[in-house]
């Protein structure tokens, strides 16, 4: 099984852009005015498995909205919708999301330094789908418009996106730390343990976002993102010991909780939000 997965990953890595695009072309899913098409998600990162979908973003000008789109997702942008095409090919589910050039520009404008300095909260400035889309620009695999992707990556690097998401993650961590302390004070240790775990997750997300490893809306990839970032403050083994509660003692949870909360604070001391 492992060999089969490795083989599949190897084969996908060798697939040409045109081989990736062929199933889309056969279904007339690449409209005129396409500026860029890129693979995102687990396949783009090499983290896929035999059950993974293929996720592709397509950027056009103007926005492509298929008459028979599988789904239309509302977004707080102009045009206010992203259409999604789903089809099955090569024993896989393929999902193609259509964005417009203007929508990407608007998302980049939302995370300007001016907006950050006004004290706008990250959660209020971008919806989950917008944040994930910008986050995915960094690690996507271009199929069409590699220059377009590179130019947007550079523009993203010049925005306050990193600071926005770090501030949001640290804010979430603070909230859960506060919860855990209050719950410990009243002796509600089970709740305090759960709050401490949440706090730690958000603190690690901030740490990873500090290195450019975004995507905290998808905690299932946190371990992989940690390995990719190798942030230095914690080794992977130290991180994993907390994530999997290796030193937790059910007879006396307080030391574990306090240790985790102290670690969250240590992380906040190390992550530069500016």
């Amino acid at each position: 099984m492992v060999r089969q997965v490795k083989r599949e990953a190897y084969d996908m890595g060798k697939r040409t852009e045109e081989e990736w695009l062929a199933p889309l072309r056969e279904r007339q899913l690449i409209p005129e005015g396409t500026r860029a098409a890129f693979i995102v998600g687990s396949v783009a990162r090499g983290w896929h498995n035999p059950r993974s979908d293929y996720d592709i973003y397509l950027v056009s000008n103007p926005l492509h909205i298929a008459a028979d789109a599988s789904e239309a997702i509302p977004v707080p942008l102009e045009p206010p919708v992203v259409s999604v095409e789903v089809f099955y090919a090569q024993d896989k589910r393929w999902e193609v999301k259509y964005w417009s050039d203007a929508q990407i520009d608007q998302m980049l404008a939302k995370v300007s330094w001016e907006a950050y300095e006004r004290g706008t909260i990250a959660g209020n400035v971008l919806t989950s789908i917008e944040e994930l889309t910008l986050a995915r620009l960094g690690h996507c695999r271009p199929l069409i418009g590699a220059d377009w992707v590179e130019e947007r990556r550079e523009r993203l690097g010049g925005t306050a996106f990193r600071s926005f998401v770090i501030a949001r993650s640290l804010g979430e961590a603070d909230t859960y730390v506060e919860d855990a302390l209050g719950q410990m004070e009243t002796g509600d240790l089970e709740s305090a343990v759960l709050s401490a775990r949440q706090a730690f997750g958000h603190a690690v997300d901030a740490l990873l976002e500090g290195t450019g490893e975004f995507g905290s809306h998808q905690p299932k990839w946190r371990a992989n993102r940690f390995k990719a970032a190798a942030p230095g403050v914690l080794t992977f083994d130290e991180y994993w010991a907390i994530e999997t509660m290796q030193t937790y003692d059910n007879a006396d949870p307080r030391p574990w909780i306090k240790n985790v909360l102290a670690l969250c604070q240590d992380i906040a001391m190390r992550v530069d939000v500016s």
Partner: protein
Amino acid sequence: MDEVVERSESVPRRVLGIRIRRMKDDFLVGDEARALLVEDSAAFIFASLDGRRSTLQVARLVAQEYGVDEEQALADVVEFLVGLADQGIVEW
């Protein structure tokens, strides 16, 4: 001077639950609306509080980093930490 001697072997810790934001080498400590800006040598001291080092050990780091007399560094560190303790940011 008594306080300096008294505190030198104590281990100062940052209080859990205190909001901390790092900006380059400086720190904003406490609630956003009335956060304390900790910068320069104060930031160095604050970053040295790992919950294991005694006040004296922190003072030695300061003396080494800034090339000052150890006794003077200890007095400065204690004064700074007592101020933070009064604000509920550090505990001994």
